[in-house]
């Protein structure tokens, strides 16, 4: 299989009929869980994930007394693939989860200072959990996109003193600054392809995920896999990620400055 992917990759072709730079169809559905403060299902081709946002209040960290927080987790849900095994998450899954978390949390997508209720006493914390529903590769892009869509969909719940009244959502949206969007590439042999499917991701020599926050701004990178990329390949993927960003922006329904 790998030899075949390499062979047709050299001709610019892929096992599912796509060209190297073709991204699969992206679909987003929001508001898929009524109990969550925000939620979304994202599919990229046959890969499908669901993300839910829950919000809670608590004491701020002592070094950031006027800032709330955000955390993103990706679970290894066994519903999504026969290849995944029960037990603690694999190191690969931990890397994926941390890549998604950093792409969102450190992008300054959410204005943490606006999550402050009372300085030094009470701040909002946003917890996003992502569960893959059907795995066909590129769970990083799907998860990042689902987190973004769920955050855009979220509304603050009602706050009564220091207690959250769940089930009584306000119409107040989250303080969103910018939209981080991730594009993942893999290299197999000498062919670099975007948005890998299950087989391509399993057989990849190297993988690079690029998160951008605008037309000219990179906010996160993560290279994985045992192989490497030449400097020219990296530059090329960066340029392409800004092009694909426009496709993803359209799917989310935003436009960056």
């Amino acid at each position: 299989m790998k030899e075949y992917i390499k062979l047709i990759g050299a001709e610019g072709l892929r096992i599912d009929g796509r060209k190297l730079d073709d991204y699969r169809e992206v679909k987003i559905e929001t508001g898929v869980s009524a109990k969550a403060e925000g939620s979304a299902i994202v599919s990229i081709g046959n890969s499908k994930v669901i993300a839910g946002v829950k919000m809670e209040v608590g004491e701020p960290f002592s070094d950031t007394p006027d800032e709330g927080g955000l955390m993103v987790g990706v679970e290894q849900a066994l519903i999504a693939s026969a290849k995944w095994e029960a037990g603690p998450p694999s190191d690969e899954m931990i890397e994926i989860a941390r890549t998604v978390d950093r792409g969102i949390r450190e992008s300054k997508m959410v204005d943490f200072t606006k999550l402050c209720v009372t300085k030094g006493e009470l701040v909002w914390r946003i917890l996003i959990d992502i569960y893959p529903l059907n795995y066909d590769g590129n769970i990083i892009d799907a998860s990042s996109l689902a987190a973004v869509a769920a955050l855009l969909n979220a509304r603050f719940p009602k706050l009564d003193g220091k207690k959250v009244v769940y089930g009584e959502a306000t119409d107040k949206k989250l303080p969103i600054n910018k939209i981080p969007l991730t594009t993942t590439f893999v290299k197999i042999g000498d062919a670099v392809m975007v948005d890998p499917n299950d087989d391509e991701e399993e057989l990849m020599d190297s993988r690079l995920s690029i998160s951008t926050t605008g037309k000219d701004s990179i906010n996160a990178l993560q290279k994985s896999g045992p192989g490497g990329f030449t400097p020219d390949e990296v530059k090329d993927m960066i340029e392409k990620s800004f092009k694909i960003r426009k496709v993803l922006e359209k799917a989310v329904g935003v436009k960056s400055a």
Partner: protein
Amino acid sequence: MSKSIRPDGRKVDEMREAKIELGVIPNANGSAKFTMGKTVAIAAVYGPRELHPRRNQIADKGLLRCNYDLMSFSVSERKRPGPSRRDKELSLVIANALSSLVFLDKFPKQVIDVFVEIPQADAGTRCAGICAASLALADAGIPMRGLTGSVSAGALGETVVIDLDKEEEDWEAGATDMPVTYCPKTNLITSLQLDGEISKKNFFNALELAIGKAKELTDMQEKALKENYKGGSEE
């Protein structure tokens, strides 16, 4: 460029002082200590040796595994001993940065274990760990395509700098940190991570700077290895 914007007065393209010591772990097949300013990494290589359990063996090639460990006392606030999620991720990142250096097809069913310990952390621990591991693999006499250099480039505000220390990583106005691993012999970037925010232009500049400095680091490693074996047995 008269006055440095860097807290320790370094030039923007100046790395911290690097020190190399080889064979620091006598029990290992190869080992090295790599010091970058106030960051210290020790790497030891055990193997190639048989991989257990046998079902994890790969028929036609060897496996390079890494275990990265930030020691509990290496940071200001004690870190709980044992692997954190960060440690697990970095173990994988380092193994992936090193795998393509080694002719793994020469060692079917075998494993090469690389252990990285950080006794003192002042930013750039994964990079120091990768430099130490590159040296330790060579010290173990494992056939390699080349040595690799690893260093963090990034930006303090709009200024591109190399080898951020902890004070710079915590830069008030926001620092971008981008650890890069590059092997000049294969012309491959084998690790690349970034946190922060950087323009495309600054990213390309930072990448170029890091690649140049990675070359310097491999030259430094080569010199230390040659020095170490000088006067030893004939090749």
